[in-house]
């Protein structure tokens, strides 16, 4: 075969070696093909086109069906304390501006998801506020700074430190360190270190709402520039002059708790406190008061002076010259009550006028309240701001006398009345640095930003009340390239120790040595960190309160309309304005969201010619203190005649995407008188109606309860004392054999609850309406934020709402039928207020359960009406048939949807870290509602089961009940005879199962016999005349 050279040929041409053939022999196609021509030339040829088209189609289709990459990375080495699915709790402290709260942070798999009150700390009484609850979402705010900033550009910490140190060192003039009140001992120590290096630093503290007047008055009277700590729980009579201690005044979680304690009633406690309030805007305190007078802001001094005179006459003390007041009846009554409860009463004022606060001191002294309801020895450190210093700073800044400014976690360009001149003056400073965690109104004007951590990423300590300490510990490592401000101060002072060690060292030298219980510092530290709190008897000399000299100068009366500023319970001072949970939390009084507005009286609306429609009003032009804004007007019952109210905290321009453009900024309208911040403008205010229509979104538009005794049942204290069931309505059903209680007439056989039967009590007497529960519920249950437009469509998603009703005693009139009904819809000018938290009532005969065609909502063996989201097809029949209207429908897809950018907890990757992994994020088209926090119930049961025991009362509680500062909500097992709920309801076995013996307890809408598991306790007002 080797030599066998066989030749194979394709055709004759090859055999004959035709030159024409040879030429194309190596080509694929021997003949001429036009395609080859094109490939020689430039541009795209057919093949390229096909290739590109093929690639294009493949790429497009690949992109279209791109599967989201979801990485779940298991622990290679599991951290010791982290068990997937098991939450860890860390005691910590919420610190924001001048506000604080002792808290416990719940973390799951290393991320903080929920905040609870710290029951071990006496500082905030174990309660929380809405802002504290919401702060966990602020941690996951994508708009926080991700890197330090130098001259407008992101930089590294080393570069920043170098620049700051060289700049600060080179400044010869004054360096101002502007902050809110600082009451963290270790922060103060760190600042001392900084001051030691740069001796030209001067600290200037301010508070958004100043307490300078009170501080000065106290300094004069007691020689100590401090705010006393208050104990409302010891007070039988409380008189508040525009001090919204249940809302935003000083330490509302604690004050709520103390106040609620005096409002609890039961078979063994038939006495409660009486609260008088004299105020211009209807505040939470005013709405919880037994007697409320709507007064002009300029009249406050006169009222207090008259009260002083009344008491001074009784005590035989010198009187002052006081002007006339309008509502002297309530004032005389208050004076009598105060005098009767000497030593157990309290008078507070929100005034920032030194002489007025001096009078208040004198009144409390006349009443012997120092040492009982007021304690100067345990002073409240949380408000130290000095107005005059701040005003001088602004002057110096503009005069060019300040060469450097350090803004320590504050934003005065926005939240100070002189913000604009601070912004202008900053140009004259040679160097400015801010530790703000976002590029806010102030930080956007400075040379360098050293972004601080969120408090949940920080170590810190605080001494909000003298001798009472609280610790902050990080619950997550830094999300961004941020550094704690105190660490920055240490770095700039040349100290390389970590702030954590610094605090520890500081505590070792101070608190550890001041106690004797523990001898080992590490043990002491661990215990303090575990508890989050440490208390030590004050070593300072006790202050003896003697005679207080009265130096009251009556002020000129106001003229014309008076503008009164207030902080509401949701957005507060505006520092957390970028938090959508707070923006969508209804204002406890107006029930409006996503806006501020001018609250005006009905009479003023009529004078202006304003007739608002359903959430529709008009813009008004408000001019005060030389500033003008156009803002919607909202009729507010209880607004003092001749006054208008305006909330601070809105109108951010650099607050973030959520905050910007919501409402108008009221801070620039605040004026200063004799160097003191004035929370009211009492002259030169004009309000003009414009033609522009505006819609204010409210979650509740009907303001009265239409005299429906099946909804709100209330009585006065004297009636209650005579008959514990006063105010109760007992509907009866007529049957063929006479009248029957609704519970005895039923189609249903009822459910058997062999193990647990969960229930809740809502004490309308201690609920102050603060709204902490609503935000707690939102955080716990992954409730979406829907934005203003959807609230205008009446589609807010909150599972828990607080209904706010106005009522008043009707004078006998001839009205009947239709006219009467129409009149009932209109609240009085100075109404009584009732707050009624409403969540799913978990009916035992649930009307929603019977109507669902697919049984997606059904009853558990523990009395909980449960929702199977997966099964729901969204007919909304259940919501229609719910007499309490607590069911919420997913009208749209609220998660992963660009249509709802406000819903940051579901629409960006960082925000989603706040979601509770134990609760499903609901899909579009399904119904949802309060579940009685079934995930918490389940967790508690499982924990108990693991330990082979029954759950102990109190270890299982709903998110709302645990957040409530006033313990108005009590959750528990009604099958457990020793549970708090069983005892409060005084449950006894009867013919039809458990019977409730507590006279105040009622089910809402008892006559339709849906048998709710939520019990309301009647509202009792401490009033003399009946109010039926």
């Amino acid at each position, binding site marked *: 075969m080797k030599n066998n050279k066989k030749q194979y040929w394709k055709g004759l041409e090859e055999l004959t070696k035709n030159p024409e053939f040879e030429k194309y022999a190596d080509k694929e196609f021997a003949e001429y093909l036009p395609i080859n021509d094109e490939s020689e030339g430039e541009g795209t040829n057919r093949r390229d086109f096909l290739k590109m088209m093929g690639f294009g189609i493949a790429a497009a289709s690949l992109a279209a069906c791109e599967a989201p990459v979801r990485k779940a990375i298991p622990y290679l080495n599991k951290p010791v304390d982290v068990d997937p699915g098991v939450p860890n709790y860390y005691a910590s402290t919420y610190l924001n501006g001048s506000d604080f709260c002792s808290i416990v942070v719940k973390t799951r798999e290393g991320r903080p998801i929920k905040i609870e009150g710290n029951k071990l700390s006496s500082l905030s009484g174990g309660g929380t506020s809405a802002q504290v609850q919401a702060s966990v979402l602020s941690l996951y705010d994508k708009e926080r700074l991700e890197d330090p900033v130098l001259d407008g550009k992101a930089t590294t910490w080393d570069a920043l430190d170098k620049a700051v140190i060289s700049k600060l060192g080179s400044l010869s003039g004054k360096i101002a360190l502007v902050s809110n009140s600082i009451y963290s001992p270790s922060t103060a120590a760190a600042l001392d270190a900084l001051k030691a290096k740069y001796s030209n630093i001067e600290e200037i503290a301010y508070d958004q709402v100043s307490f300078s007047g009170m501080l000065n008055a106290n300094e004069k009277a007691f020689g100590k520039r401090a705010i006393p700590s208050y104990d409302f729980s010891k007070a039988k009579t409380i008189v508040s002059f525009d001090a919204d201690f249940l809302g935003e005044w000083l330490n509302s979680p604690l004050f709520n708790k103390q106040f609620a304690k005096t409002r609890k009633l039961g078979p063994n406690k038939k006495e409660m406190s009486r609260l008088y309030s004299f105020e211009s805007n209807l505040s939470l305190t005013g709405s919880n008061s037994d007697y409320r007078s709507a007064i002009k802001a300029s009249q406050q001094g006169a009222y207090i002076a008259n009260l002083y005179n009344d008491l001074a006459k009784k005590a035989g003390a010198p009187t002052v010259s006081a002007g006339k007041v309008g509502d002297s009846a309530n004032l005389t009554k208050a004076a009598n009550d105060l005098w009767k409860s000497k030593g157990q009463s309290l008078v507070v004022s929100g005034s920032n006028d030194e002489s007025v606060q001096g009078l208040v001191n004198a009144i409390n002294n006349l009443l012997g309240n120092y040492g009982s309801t007021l304690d100067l020895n345990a002073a409240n450190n949380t408000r130290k701001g000095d107005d005059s210093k701040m005003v001088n700073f602004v002057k110096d800044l503009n005069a060019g006398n300040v060469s450097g400014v350090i803004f320590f976690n504050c934003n005065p360009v926005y939240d100070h009345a002189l913000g604009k001149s601070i912004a202008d003056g900053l140009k004259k400073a040679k160097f400015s640095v801010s530790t703000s965690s976002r590029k806010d109104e102030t930080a956007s004007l400075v040379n360098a930003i050293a972004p601080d951590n969120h408090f949940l990423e920080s170590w810190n300590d605080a001494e909000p009340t003298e001798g009472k300490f609280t610790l902050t510990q990080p619950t997550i490592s830094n999300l961004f390239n941020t550094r704690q401000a105190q660490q920055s101060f240490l770095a700039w002072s040349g100290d390389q120790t970590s702030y954590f060690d610094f605090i520890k060292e500081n505590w070792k030298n101070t608190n550890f040595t001041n106690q004797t219980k523990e001898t080992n510092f590490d043990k002491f530290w661990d215990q303090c960190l575990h508890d989050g709190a440490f208390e030590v008897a004050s070593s300072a000399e006790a202050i003896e309160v003697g005679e207080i000299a009265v130096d009251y100068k009556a002020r000129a009366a106001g003229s014309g309309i008076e503008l009164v500023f207030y902080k509401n319970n949701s957005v507060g001072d505006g520092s957390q304005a970028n938090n959508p949970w707070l923006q969508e939390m209804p204002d406890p009084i107006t029930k409006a969201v996503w806006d501020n507005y001018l609250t005006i009286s009905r009479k003023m609306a009529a004078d202006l010619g304003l007739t608002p429609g*359903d959430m529709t009003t008009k813009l008004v032009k408000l001019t005060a203190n030389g500033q003008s804004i156009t803002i919607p007007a909202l009729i507010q019952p209880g607004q003092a005649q001749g006054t208008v109210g305006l909330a601070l905290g809105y109108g951010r321009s650099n607050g973030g995407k959520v905050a910007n453009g919501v409402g108008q900024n009221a801070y620039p309208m605040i004026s200063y008188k004799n160097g003191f911040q004035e929370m009211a403008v009492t002259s030169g205010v004009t309000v003009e109606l414009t033609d522009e229509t505006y819609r204010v979104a409210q979650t*509740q*538009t*009907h303001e009265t*309860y*239409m005299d*429906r005794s*099946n*909804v709100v049942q209330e009585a006065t204290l004297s009636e209650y004392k005579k008959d514990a069931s006063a105010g109760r309505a007992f509907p009866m059903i007529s049957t063929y054999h006479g009248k029957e209680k609704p519970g005895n007439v039923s189609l249903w056989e009822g459910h058997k609850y062999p193990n647990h039967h969960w229930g809740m009590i809502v004490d309308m007497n201690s609920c102050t309406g603060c709204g902490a529960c609503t935000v707690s519920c939102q955080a716990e249950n992954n409730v979406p934020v829907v934005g203003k437009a*959807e609230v205008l*469509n*009446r*589609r*807010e998603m909150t599972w828990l*709402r607080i*209904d*706010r*009703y106005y009522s008043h005693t009707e004078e006998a009139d001839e009205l009947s*039928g*239709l006219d009467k*009904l129409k009149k009932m819809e209109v609240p009085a000018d100075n109404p009584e207020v009732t707050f*009624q938290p*409403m969540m799913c009532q978990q009916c035992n005969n649930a*009307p929603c359960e*019977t*109507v*669902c*065609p*697919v*049984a997606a909502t059904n009853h558990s063996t523990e009395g909980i009406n449960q929702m199977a989201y997966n*099964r*729901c*097809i*969204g*007919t*909304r*029949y259940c*919501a*229609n*048939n719910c*007499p*309490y*209207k607590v*069911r*919420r*429908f*997913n*009208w*749209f897809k609220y998660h992963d949807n660009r*249509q709802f950018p406000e819903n940051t907890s579901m629409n960006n990757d960082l925000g989603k870290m706040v979601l509770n992994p134990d609760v499903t994020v609901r*899909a*579009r*088209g*399904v*119904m949802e509602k309060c579940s009685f926090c079934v995930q918490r119930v389940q967790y508690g049961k499982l924990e108990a089961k693991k330990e082979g025991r029954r759950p102990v009362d109190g270890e299982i509680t709903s998110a709302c009940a645990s957040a409530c500062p006033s313990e108005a909500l009590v959750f528990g097992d009604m099958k457990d005879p020793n549970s708090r709920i069983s005892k409060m309801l005084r449950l006894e076995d009867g013919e039809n199962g458990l019977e409730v013996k507590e006279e105040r307890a009622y089910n*809402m*809408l008892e*006559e*339709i016999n*849906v048998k709710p598991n939520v019990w309301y306790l009647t509202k009792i007002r401490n009033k003399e005349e009946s109010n039926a």
Partner: protein
Amino acid sequence: MHAESVVRQPLVTGGKTVHDITNDICGRVEEKPAKSWMLAMALSLSLLAIGGYYVYRLLWHGIGEWGLNKTVGWAWDITNFVWWVGIGHAGTLISAILLLFRQRWRMAINRAAEAMTIFAVICAAMFPILHMGRPWLGAYWALPLPNTFGSLWVNFNSPLLWDVFAISTYFSVSLVFWYIGLIPDFASIRDRATTTVRKAVYGALSFGWDGASKTWSRYETVALVLAGLATPLVLSVHTIVSFDFATSVIPGWHTTIFPPYFVAGAIFSGFAMVLTLLLVTRKVYKLEDYITVQHIELMNIVIIVTGSIVGVAYITEFFIASYSGVEAEQYAFINRAFGPYWWAYASMMTCNVISPQLFWFKSIRTNIASTFVISIIVNIGMWFERFVIIVTSLHRDYIPSSWAMFYPKAADIGVYLFSFGFFFTAFFLFAKFFPVINMAEVKSIVKATSEKTDK
């Protein structure tokens, strides 16, 4: 004494012969579509397209496209549903109950009325599906289908489930009844067909009808059996629809008067809709000899009777509310008449109670134009009746804090238009391609009553 019965008015006028009938009716199917038909069809299709856009938006974005809210969970959707179901009552009533009562005047109108029923029920059925948050699941989860999801089963307590059964039974019986009636007429068209396509299509549609005596006998037996089956359905469907409301706890819904009141209302609106459509068809197809003024007058009498029943029911509701002593119930009714939706209530009262009373005047009830106008007014009124029941009861029920207004959005109107688009498209297709009058039945009365044969 000797009594002689009055000579009955002929039911078919114009001296029609059997052959005339075939020509008149089949001719409409066989001839080229008229310009007016093309125009009407174009309008219907554009309605369908515009509505279709909103249906798309609704399905793509969610129920939030409608104006519903936390307080008012149903509004236009269920209003439209009940309204269309009501309209869908007349067909079966005319065919079944009037057949059993041997009312032969029904023969000229039953075909169109039944067709209208079928289409109206389809329109009605759209809404329960479209109104669901998750129709892609709900459309079959609401049926008691054996499944692999475990022990999941429908909730037989729920009136919505009863609706599913009521509507589907009614729809299937009506469809079968209607179709069986069509078979001999399809056969006539088939037999007259000149083109192969027509022959094939109508041949298939007529199921091989051979016109034998035995076939006719079976046909009539089936018709009678189906009429017997359909009769209780006329009463049951709207009774069950009314249970959606009557079994609830909502004041204004929770009332025992609903079943008869809903049935009367359904017949009322159904007859009105039949009149609206027939008056147009009669004019366009020149069927004046078949659908005579007598027909119109008789139907108008039914409208007076049912309209008056409905009116009495409205007043009774008020009486019961006041008599009950239930505060929420009393308020619900006062609010209905004098609250923010007073205009809806006033429209309902004017359209449903006052306007049909005009039919007491013979000149009005025998006048084509006035009948046409009033028939439309009645249907507007009946739409408002459902709106009033649903929205004004929900928007202010027990807890005043949740009281809210309902404002419709574009999609509310759009989806309603979609149902109209579908209804008219289907009806015009029917009018063109199906015999609009039951020829077979009408022929049975022509001999006895037609003038020509008398001569």
